[in-house]
């Protein structure tokens, strides 16, 4: 009896000990887990200004110097930057909307042109009152920033964001491939015919394992810059009224003052325009003749590596490529950049990005202070120390930024706006996601088959765009 009891007790206490150990481990983990509580999510559970940016934790950390500088100026405002990883801007906006749905929206969001009107229409608070109040402080910023970038953030007469960085669709080219084909640097006003001839020369010089023109199927750098060059687009572009208060205050003496408006509008589809057909047919010809690739859906994440390994002759991209090419081993003379080829016009495409204050922001005044500070030269130099993008401030696009990295003709980046003031933003109405889907899903078909398939694809695009624009955003 005793022995049996002792045995059971011994067994029982071993189990108890093991159980207690398990509970202890779980308890210790729970107690020490740093992000287990919902209040640990940036901006939740305290009065910090939560700022969402697209990027990695490293991108958030890179902003720490700017946050520190801001905190020195405004010790009463606590700032938390939340980096959200996303494949592209559409993906990023989806995640922000999910946060809105979950009831945990950030106070400030870094928004690119692709989402500017979606946010302006639904989510963002206009900056007008703050700009009017702090006009004296802001004059220096607008002096240094091209009005086209500002106009891209106007919506129905109000300004919703200050442009922090931007990129135009310029044409990168591999200088080695050009030299092998006996080509000189393209002229600033080279045409789509010159471009095609250059591709043909490169193809002749390197018949295999090489792509003369690589492009991707997306809103930026896909078919749109070609449409702009041919003085058309897949959506009819109009301008809204209003906004004079801003132009008269900050750009009264700008030579392009008369071009400015209360913001862009894209209200109707335009895929049935004969010039759209002509543009697509040109690209179809490049694909058919092996001069350009069929564009893949979803973007070109592998493009930097391929370009840096001399397997691509030309591709459209913005200043955001410079640091990547440098890190991929390209020397400053291994590549260069030129304006996008002209056609009927030499209007270029650009995209820009800046902070928007959410309507739901806890403290909009604090949010504005962050935006105002971020627009200062001091903050922008802290945030953009390398050419990972083109800073919105003209004065920052200088020799020092590109020193040792290239390209030789870095001036092309800002000249795309300064020399061509009609250069326009990515067509992105509030229904941008549906519009982008309608465009992308038909581009591949349009340029990959015969003329009949091209016509069918454009008819389909017209229908899809009608549906997309009819839907509420």
């Amino acid at each position, binding site marked *: 009896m005793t022995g049996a009891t002792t045995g059971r007790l011994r067994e029982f206490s071993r189990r108890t000990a093991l159980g207690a150990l398990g509970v202890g481990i779980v308890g210790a983990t729970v107690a020490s887990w740093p992000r287990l509580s919902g209040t640990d999510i940036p901006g939740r559970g305290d009065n910090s200004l939560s700022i969402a940016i697209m990027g990695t934790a490293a991108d958030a950390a890179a902003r720490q110097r700017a946050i520190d500088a801001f905190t020195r100026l405004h010790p009463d405002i606590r700032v938390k930057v939340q980096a959200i990883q996303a494949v592209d801007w*559409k993906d990023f906006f*989806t995640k922000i*909307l*999910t946060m*809105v*749905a979950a009831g945990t929206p950030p106070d400030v969001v870094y928004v690119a042109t692709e989402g500017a009107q979606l946010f302006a229409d*639904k*989510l963002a608070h206009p900056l007008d009152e703050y700009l009017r109040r702090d006009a004296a402080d802001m004059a220096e910023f607008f002096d240094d920033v091209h009005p086209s970038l500002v106009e891209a953030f106007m919506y129905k007469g109000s300004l919703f964001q200050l442009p922090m960085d931007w990129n135009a669709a310029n044409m990168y080219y591999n200088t080695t491939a050009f030299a092998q084909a006996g080509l000189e640097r393209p002229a600033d006003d080279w045409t789509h015919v010159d471009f095609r001839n250059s591709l043909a020369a490169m193809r002749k010089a390197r018949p295999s394992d090489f*792509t003369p023109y*690589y492009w991707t*199927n997306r809103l930026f750098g896909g078919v749109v810059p070609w449409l702009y060059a041919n003085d058309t687009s897949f959506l009819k572009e109009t301008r809204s009224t209003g906004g004079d208060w801003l132009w008269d205050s900050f750009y009264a003496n700008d030579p392009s003052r008369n071009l400015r408006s209360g913001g862009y509008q894209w209200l109707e589809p335009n895929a049935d325009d004969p010039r759209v057909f002509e543009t697509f047919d040109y690209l179809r010809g490049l694909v058919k003749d092996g001069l350009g*690739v*069929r*564009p*893949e*859906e*979803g973007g070109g994440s*592998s493009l930097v590596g*391929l370009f840096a390994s001399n*397997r691509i002759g030309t591709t459209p991209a913005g200043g955001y490529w410079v640091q990547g090419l440098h890190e991929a081993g390209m020397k400053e003379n291994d590549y260069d950049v030129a304006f996008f080829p002209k056609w009927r016009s030499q209007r270029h495409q650009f995209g820009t990005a800046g902070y928007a204050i959410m309507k739901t922001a806890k403290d909009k005044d604090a949010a504005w202070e962050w935006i105002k500070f971020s627009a200062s030269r001091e903050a922008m130099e802290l945030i953009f120390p390398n050419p990972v993008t083109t800073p919105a401030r003209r004065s920052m696009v200088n020799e020092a930024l590109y020193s040792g990295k290239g390209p030789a003709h870095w001036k092309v980046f800002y000249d795309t706006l300064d020399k061509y003031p009609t250069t326009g933003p990515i067509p992105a109405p509030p*229904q941008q*996601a*549906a519009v982008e*889907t309608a465009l*992308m*899903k*038909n*581009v*591949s*078909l349009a340029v*990959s088959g015969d003329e009949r398939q091209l016509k069918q*694809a454009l008819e*389909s695009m017209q*229908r*899809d765009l009608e*549906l*997309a624009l009819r*839907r*509420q*955003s």
Partner: protein
Amino acid sequence: MSTTIPRLERPKQPAKAVKPGTPATSQTASGRQSQRWLAWIFLAPTILGMGLFTLVPIAASVVLAFFRWDIISAPTFVGFDNFAEVVQDPTVRVSFLNTIAFVIVAVALQLGLALALAVMVQEKMPAWLRTFFRSAFFFPLILSAASVSIFMRYLFNEQFGVVNWFLSLAGIPAVPWLTTPGGSAAVVILVYVWQNFGFSFLLFIGGLASIPVETYEAAALDGATGWRKHVYVTLPLLSPTTLLASVMAIISALQVFDQPYVLTRGGPGDSTRTAVMVIFESAFQRLEFGEASAIGVILTLIIMAITAAQFRLSKRFVFYQ
């Protein structure tokens, strides 16, 4: 040879475990009581999880299908408008047709491949080799579909992909895998089947292991060897497993999203756009949560109808030991 195998009768009452030296009646009453509590305690997490994360969202989705809602504004009741719009939307129609076509091809390949490989692995081979194959075939299933698809994008790139490089060694010109409707559909199916057949494979391995050796021996005595052995013994006795595998494979394939989304974004055109992808695009890209819910409800009804049909048909083809 007969394929009718008598069912094993289960005992009507479970055997009672009675501690020696304890009165049987009081033990049973208190034991049942405590067992009931214990059962509820163990079931509680699952019931709570199912309720909170499955049943409530399903109910919410059904309700939402009758509203127009963009997250930001208050929902507006629109009756059956969302369903009417969905039915008229050509993209939705195409995506459902794509999904059905995908299910037919992918499930047939998945089950065929899984069964063939399971039979192969069950044949006589060294234990270590069997273990290796089991692990190797199951391995793709534990990988993230998104990661696999990103990797496959590189592999199937027309200009620089490894697949076309191999083809070029054999003098075959580059295939536009991801930029033509046929090519992209083939890649999506290939990647999906490669990643998912491991689950059906495991089910078949389990099913094969449960077939008594004596049945094969009896069949061998009757002269059934080689191919005939599998046709007359393996397939009929494996039919319950095949039913389970096919039900699960079809339900999973009807909800395919990751592979086509990452590989092709539904393109070119709508060639690889699936029903779940349209739900995602409606909800999270176009902010039409009511319409997305309506598509979701239709898809759920289709899944339920197909599953019910499978079970109904199974009475004719499934044999239980």
